[in-house]
């Protein structure tokens, strides 16, 4: 049965797709949520006059946004290279 399945379905592509979908799908949400967290913490820290915390929060937001931007570029490259 499993041999028949393997002849019909490209099981390697299927496994890679499931793994990449899990990593990319959950990953992009985590990274974007971290950007929101960073931006929100930055606002609070600045209001409270905590300079160090504000810089750390801004750093988190910028790095996470950068990662989201990179994910968009990778997505467009995938589309172009199909």
């Amino acid at each position, binding site marked *: 049965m499993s041999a028949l399945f393997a*002849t*019909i*379905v*490209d099981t390697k*592509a*299927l496994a*890679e*797709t*499931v793994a*990449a*979908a*899990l990593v*990319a*799908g*959950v*990953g*992009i*949400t*985590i990274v*974007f*949520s*971290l*950007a*929101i*967290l960073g*931006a*929100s913490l930055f*606002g609070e820290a600045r209001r409270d006059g905590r300079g160090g915390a504000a810089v750390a929060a801004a750093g988190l937001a910028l790095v996470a946004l950068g990662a*989201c931007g990179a*994910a*968009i570029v*990778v*997505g*467009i490259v*995938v*589309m*172009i*290279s*199909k």
Partner: protein
Amino acid sequence: MDADVTLVIVVGTALAFDFTNGFHDTANVVATSISTRAMAPRIAIAYAALLNFAGAFISLEVAATVADDVVEASAITPTVVFAGLIGAIAWNLATWYYGLPSSSSHALLGGVVGSTLAAVGTSAVLADGVFGKILIPAVVAPIVAFVVGALAIVCAYRIVGRLRPGSVNRGYRLGQVASGGMLALAHGTNDAQKTMGVITLALVANGTLGADEGVPFWVVVSAASAIALGTYSGGWRIIRTMGTRIIKMDAAQGFSAQGAGAAVILASSHFGFPLSTTQVISGGVMGAGAGKRVSAVRWGVAGNIVAAWLLTFPAAAAVGAATYGVTRIFGTGAVGPVIVATVALGLVALAFARRARQGAPVPVG
């Protein structure tokens, strides 16, 4: 002369399918953005239409193998393609009528398999392709998207759960502009290619185009325009189902469903195991709902959608086969396609008129 008339009808029918594809699948791209108020409805639809148009030009890898994986290429004639397209259009309009999201690609392949069965028989249908390219992915896509959507929203709530809802919602709404844009681009690239492939196939079969020539520019422009126009027309009934009837979603859920959906679609494209955009987004929406609370998903609506997915291939195949049979009653010339196309246009007009009389589309706000 007959062959040229048939070719013109096939091209027109392919563009009509492309229009219904955009019209039907608008919901995939814009429903979550509209329901979370990330974008105003008309702006969301215009944005999706523009990016669908652009997406059609991004990759010009010829999609002439649209049906080659599921039927013998030698079996494909303009009349077979025509009957298959009618099967796909009929299923797209039937599911639009009842507001159900379903895969336009599976409808197209179902229609072509049905018309091929009627024209040649089972020997021309590639069972491995039907299972490997349609049935197995149809099971995998919603499950993967459901799991990814559910995990994504659980992670998102853990990260932003203690923050003020106002700024969190604004953030996710902004994110939806990007994730919705990626979905629209991916949709334009994938689905407009299928129509370009079908038209190119018909041009080659008619001898108008050499087998080794590329897709003519007018085919690219017309397919891109048809899918963009269809998208701009907006299938409001499916938008309502996707945006509000499966779950009542917040901005974080909308982003999780869309972002996870875009990532799943692109990952599947990259690894050569393409999944249906519609099934991925619908699965993602259900997952984003269930990840928050299992009872948040209206499982009755979800069940109807899954039933539509199961019926897509056989129903489109049945209509494709019946259309081929009716067309052949009038011989092998252009008379059959002309009569069938005229009747189909009349039925489409009737369906739109009935729906227009039955009430307003999705409430917008």
